[in-house]
């Protein structure tokens, strides 16, 4: 266990809420999460939306809202990860790529946001990062509202790439970007891992995650239900241990998609209604 970079054991997170004015209650979106990430390893965390994947990231970083109550253990490099230690490490040894593009400052030019914390040679490093992620130098002068969703993702990614990072927590870094930029981001995560960093890749994009991940942790309703080697995700998913994971795997558009929902309703397959003309025909999509 000495090589475990991050160990999360029996993590639970609750929120206290007020209702009917002054009465208090606690809801428990996360009841029992277990994840372990070793140095140089990429662990994908997948699960249904609302199952608590982002909360896991926020708990490790210590950025949960004030009304959150945490239980269980989180250890980083063999020592308990206390709130003070989280505050000291985040943004330095532990970097975070947030899920929502709302995490960017709407009133700061994106180039400047990427330069935060880069030190003396910030301008040249920022230029290099922009070039690597396919952003133009002139894009740095723009404000977040002037960029597309996919470009904002790449800016968010650039803000997280720093010297001395040992653990990367990427919360949905890839939605809404085109395949080339996606490949670059995956390559970058792989590169970080091969340099010895541990990567927690929280994602819905199971297909992309499987390209680089070593193991996959599956979360359902706030519990870890399965941790499998990435290689187990193949074919009809017979090597997967739980029914939920098998369904998740088979529901991909690349696999069966909504087959399990069909039969109940009459579902017309679109193929026979194809028209030609101005439009590309199906399959001509070459990106």
């Amino acid at each position: 266990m000495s090589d475990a970079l991050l160990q999360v054991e029996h993590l639970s997170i609750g929120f206290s809420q007020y209702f009917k004015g002054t009465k208090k209650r606690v809801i428990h979106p996360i009841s029992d999460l277990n994840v372990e990430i070793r140095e140089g390893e990429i662990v994908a965390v997948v699960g249904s939306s609302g199952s608590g994947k982002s909360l896991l990231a926020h708990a490790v970083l210590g950025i949960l809202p004030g009304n959150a109550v945490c239980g269980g253990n989180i250890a980083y490099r063999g020592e308990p990860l206390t709130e003070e230690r989280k505050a000291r490490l985040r943004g330095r040894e532990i970097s975070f790529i947030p899920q929502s593009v709302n995490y960017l400052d709407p009133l700061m030019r994106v180039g400047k946001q990427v330069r935060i914390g880069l030190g003396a040679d910030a301008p040249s490093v920022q230029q290099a990062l922009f070039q690597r992620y396919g952003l133009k130098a002139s894009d740095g002068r723009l404000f977040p509202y002037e960029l597309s969703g996919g470009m904002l993702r790449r800016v968010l990614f650039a803000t997280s790439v720093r010297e001395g990072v040992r653990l990367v927590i990427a919360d949905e870094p890839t939605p809404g970007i085109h395949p080339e930029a996606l490949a670059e981001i995956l390559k970058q995560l792989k590169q970080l891992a091969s340099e010895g960093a541990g990567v927690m890749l929280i994602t819905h994009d199971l297909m992309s995650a499987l390209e680089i991940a070593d193991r996959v942790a599956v979360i359902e309703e706030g519990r870890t239900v399965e941790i499998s080697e990435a290689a187990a995700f193949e074919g009809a998913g017979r090597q997967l241990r739980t029914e939920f994971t098998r369904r998740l795997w088979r529901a991909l558009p690349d696999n069966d998609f909504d087959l399990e929902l069909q039969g109940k309703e009459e579902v017309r397959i679109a193929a026979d209604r194809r028209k030609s003309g101005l439009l590309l025909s199906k399959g001509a999509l070459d990106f």
Partner: protein
Amino acid sequence: MPLIGENLGYYYQKERWIFKDIHLSVAPGEVLGLSGYSGCGKTTLSRILAGYIKPRNGRVTVGGGELKRNAFRPVQLIYQHPEKAINPKWRMEDVLTESYTPSQDILDAFEIRDEWLKRWPLELSGGQLQRFCIVRALNPAAKYIIADEMTTMLDAITQAKIWNAFLRICRSRNIGVIVVSHEAALLNRICDNLYKVGRD
């Protein structure tokens, strides 16, 4: 009454065109996929087709008539980031019933739970918020719906369920759908036709 975009062009900074000369047409009940690089103007094009911004060039018509302001918009838009499309100071029940009161069947089809209705937007996940945005767009008067990366924030099971329910309702009401996505596998699964925005 097809939705037609003729000769559409747009720029944000003068004479730096994002796209030009786009011709698009969607028939009632048709599912059209839009793809292209990020930053090529797919979202801008969606906003033009929905009538939220005026094109610099060309025009958008539904059944021959131009889109009217200050009236119900027959072309509804579902945004890529639901957390930015919902008023953070409204409870979810107010968000949901702003334009019409959806039937229980529709809420069930998208698995919207009663307990979510009393919550604030911040207390729901991105995927949960997006279901409200979808139901909100399914106003009985809607003729066309543009789904801009509608399910990118969802897991595969939920994605499949939502598209299944969404397309079933659209088909039964003969609503035309424009699907904006980067995921080729998804577009190939659900679209009748595909259109690629921008230069290759």
